[in-house]
């Protein structure tokens, strides 16, 4: 990895903390094993819970024999639909767009393999595990429907979260008729399972009608009322603790059946209960990325300008809920195209319901779009970079809005220069390395939208000069404990070391969702504003105090830094926070803040982070084994709060791109619907030896419109662009395009036979 770069000087001006590559403030806790994840909690008198999963994918449980489980030493109870009380809210009711339909032993219906059909409670984990094995179920089973050819097709009302499934603009049909050239690509992408290293878990303990829940959660503000609704208690009776998440990637943003079963079991047993999913149970009730069958077509005029863009996606969901990956919306704001037609259809599989998985929609769609653009460049006889620059979008092609900021040209150049792209031969199969391996170079464009959520935060400055800032935000590895802390300290005009900081707890102000790559902007903006609110109040006190050197200074001309308030135009005139508060006899000042995005800006501008990724692959000419050997990306995402952590997010995303392109595939048996590879031996993700030389360059970008602080997201950006870059590099090495991800040896062999290579 390249050395951590410095960012431009004006970006450091947020305060003394932001822009610094601080090491993680939770680092010591994480390297010493003292960071507490949900399943690390162990209240006194704990019962262990393990659920038994359905071995069919569709039908009914006709009988459950729990005698052997109950007879096993240590097992104290087995929950089944016969003895499980109804929840206060029907778990099939969708109260918010973020509510998933879940299975909580409310009936005998089976909707996917691995669905909980019984919960075994025992004094030891070993007894609970064995008890789950001893539960014997019989079923009335219907034929499972898995795959686009077997599942039930339908027209969805929405994709993603409430996004329209169809969109068109411009004279699409007319432009198509005018086209001189066209390029189209059809590809499939598989089911992908999030598989955070920390399996979903819950530890629940009731005290009367108050429940304390340890559970990894990306959206505490939504989870708290969600749990309250299921259990018929007021939201203030739910205490949710989630200081550390062992990875989320979208899979810990909503409430799931197994975790609600743990909470329910604790209420039924009147004892604390711990329920942690086993790895194989991560392939059913806790979401995944939809499979897709996509076709993308670009039409061009005689000068190789794009005229029309068409993207169709058939997207999988479950039989009982409606999350669909919005793959065909991925290219709406990407390349300059005067006419666009995109549409989604849906297919119901007998699997659990999919959900948002790192860069939902965009990762899936751009994996195919970037191939289509390269095919278009090939037809035009142009270098892929030159073709992308020719069709560079100065305005969002879907709505004509200017971008709030778009340093994509600079990204293309920075990464191309570092990679050495200019030496790329135009034709495929031109390069071999010293060992005779086919070598290919490919590229892709990264894009991810920049949403903003209404987060809240609180800051307190005390008379002794100490301070505290807090929001309920979540750190799932992206670095919230560090980046948000930096922004909170800057809001207060203090060093990060000099303030207390807290996140990950439902008693704190709602920090909104850690998702959509919006958390640093949203929660960080709120923290900064809360600190500013403290400084504003402090300045009011000082400027009205005759004994203060700041007396009479206008409020707006006073700044806080390093615990000292001073005149903006004359920093020598000022005094410490402590002096102001002690003289005024005030114990503490409390500030409240919300991040802000100007409403007019939202209507005026298209807001995205951008990037460019270049990949080198080497392919064995006989065996067609593919290795990614180099990945260079450059990314522009507004103000970067912590370059070290931003870079880690981006390289992590690029590794997800490698995984998407070459490794990951959730397979289900078509006859039974059961997952075939629900463990890490079968479900492949990259290991260290699979990871190439990686570079993630940060390109300076000032975004004055996206929000008050000009912060955009980096968590999901790196996967977009990388997938297509690798597929394009494989084509460049071999001359072969496969019809599905992941790119497999057998598909390349077939392609080679077709080519006669």
């Amino acid at each position, binding site marked *: 990895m390249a050395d951590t770069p410095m960012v431009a000087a004006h970006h450091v001006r947020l305060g003394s903390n932001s822009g610094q590559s601080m090491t993680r403030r939770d680092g010591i806790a994480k*390297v010493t094993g003292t960071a507490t994840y949900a399943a*690390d909690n162990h209240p006194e008198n704990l019962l262990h819970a393990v659920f038994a999963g359905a071995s069919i994918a569709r039908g009914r449980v006709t009988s459950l024999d729990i005698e052997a489980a109950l007879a096993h030493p240590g097992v104290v109870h087995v929950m089944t639909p016969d003895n499980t009380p109804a929840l206060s809210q029907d778990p099939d009711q969708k109260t918010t767009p973020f509510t998933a339909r879940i299975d909580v032993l409310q009936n005998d219906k089976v909707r996917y393999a691995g669905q909980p059909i019984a919960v075994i409670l025992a004094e030891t984990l070993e007894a609970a595990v064995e008890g789950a094995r001893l539960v014997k179920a019989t079923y009335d089973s219907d034929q499972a429907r898995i795959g686009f050819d077997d599942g039930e097709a339908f027209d969805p009302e929405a994709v993603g979260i409430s996004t329209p499934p169809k969109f068109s603009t411009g004279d699409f049909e007319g432009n198509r008729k005018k086209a001189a050239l066209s390029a189209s690509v059809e590809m499939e992408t598989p089911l992908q399972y999030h598989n955070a290293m920390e399996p979903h878990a819950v530890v629940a303990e009731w005290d009367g009608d108050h429940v304390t829940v340890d559970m990894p959660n990306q959206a505490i503000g939504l989870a708290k009322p969600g749990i309250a609704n299921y259990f018929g208690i007021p939201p203030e009776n739910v205490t949710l603790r989630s200081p550390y998440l062992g990875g989320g990637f979208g899979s810990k943003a909503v409430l799931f059946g197994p975790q609600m079963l743990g909470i329910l079991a604790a209420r039924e047993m009147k004892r604390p209960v711990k329920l942690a999913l086993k790895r194989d149970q991560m392939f059913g009730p806790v979401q995944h990325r939809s499979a897709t069958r996509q076709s993308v077509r670009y039409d061009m005029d005689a000068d190789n300008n794009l005229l029309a863009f068409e993207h169709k996606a058939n997207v999988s969901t479950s039989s009982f809920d409606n999350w669909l990956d919005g793959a065909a919306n991925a290219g709406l704001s990407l390349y300059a195209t005067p006419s666009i037609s995109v549409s989604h259809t849906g297919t119901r599989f007998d699997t659990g319901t999919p959900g948002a998985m790192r860069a939902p929609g965009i990762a899936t769609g751009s994996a195919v779009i970037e191939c289509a653009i390269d095919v278009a460049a090939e037809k035009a006889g142009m270098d892929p970079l030159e073709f992308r620059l020719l069709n560079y979008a100065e305005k969002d092609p879907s709505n004509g809005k200017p971008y709030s900021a778009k340093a994509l040209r600079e990204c293309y150049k920075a990464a191309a220069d570092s990679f050495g792209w200019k030496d790329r031969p135009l034709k495929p199969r031109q390069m071999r390395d010293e060992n005779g391996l086919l070598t290919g170079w490919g590229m892709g464009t990264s894009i991810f939208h920049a949403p903003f959520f209404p987060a809240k935060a609180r800051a307190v400055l005390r008379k002794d000069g100490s301070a505290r800032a807090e929001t309920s935000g979540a750190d799932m590895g992206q670095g919230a404990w560090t980046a948000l802390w930096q922004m909170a300290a800057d809001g207060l005009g203090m060093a990060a070391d000099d303030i207390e900081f807290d996140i990950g707890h439902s008693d704190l102000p709602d920090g909104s969702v850690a998702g959509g790559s919006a958390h640093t902007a949203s929660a960080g903006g709120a923290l900064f504003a809360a600190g500013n609110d403290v400084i504003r109040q402090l300045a009011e006190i000082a400027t009205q105090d005759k004994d203060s050197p700041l007396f009479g200074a206008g409020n707006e001309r006073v700044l806080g830094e390093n615990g000292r308030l001073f005149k903006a135009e004359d920093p020598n005139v000022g005094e410490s926070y402590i002096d102001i508060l002690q003289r005024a006899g005030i114990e503490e000042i409390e500030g409240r803040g919300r991040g802000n995005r100007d409403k007019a800006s939202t209507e005026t501008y298209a807001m995205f982070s951008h990037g460019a990724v270049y990949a080198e692959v080497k392919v064995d000419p006989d065996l067609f084994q593919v290795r990614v050997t180099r990945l260079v990306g450059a990314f522009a995402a507004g103000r970067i709060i912590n370059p070290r952590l931003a870079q880690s997010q981006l390289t992590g995303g690029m590794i997800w791109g490698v995984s998407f392109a070459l490794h990951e595939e959730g397979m289900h048996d078509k006859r039974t619907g059961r997952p075939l590879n629900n463990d890490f*031996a079968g479900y492949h993700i990259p*290991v*260290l030896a699979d990871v190439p030389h990686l570079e993630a360059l940060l390109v300076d970008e000032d975004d004055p419109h996206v929000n008050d602080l000009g912060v955009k997201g980096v968590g999901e950006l790196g996967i977009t662009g990388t997938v297509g870059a690798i597929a394009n590099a494989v084509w460049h090495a071999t001359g072969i395009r496969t019809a599905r991800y992941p790119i497999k040896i057998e598909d390349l062999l077939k392609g080679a036979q077709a080519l006669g290579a």
Partner: protein
Amino acid sequence: MALRISLNINGTEHGVDLEDPRPTLLDVLRERIGLTGTKKGCDRGQCGACTVLVDGRRVNSCLTLAVSLEGAKITTVEGLANGDALHPVQTAFIEHDGFQCGYCTPGQIMSAIGLLSETEGKASAEAVREGMSGNLCRCGAYAGIQDAVMDAQARIAKGAKS
């Protein structure tokens, strides 16, 4: 078939009562002794999150029965630092940002210490890439992990206490 065993963990003897011989070292550490730094990622030896040292050798504690370890010296992530002084591998992981969510990190660190001991301070970059490939990191912090392990080896060679 109740058993009482004694385990030497991080230099301290822990007496543990077991109802039967089934419990793994991982579950005994986490659920019976309260050493929860060692993590469960898969429970079948495929992810490395539960890696600990047994007599200096790295093992997957999820595949090791606790009853088989009487008389052995077990080291977990909690046993590395000396007060506030971190082990050089721990320091290197922080400085090179060798983690994001932190869940696989105790296993990565224990595995790195085992690897550096196996290779007697002469691990090549390639040996680290291969030798650390039994430890999955879903966040994709691999670039930092590679740099951290190489740097820790250099620190130890320069006399940092391991």
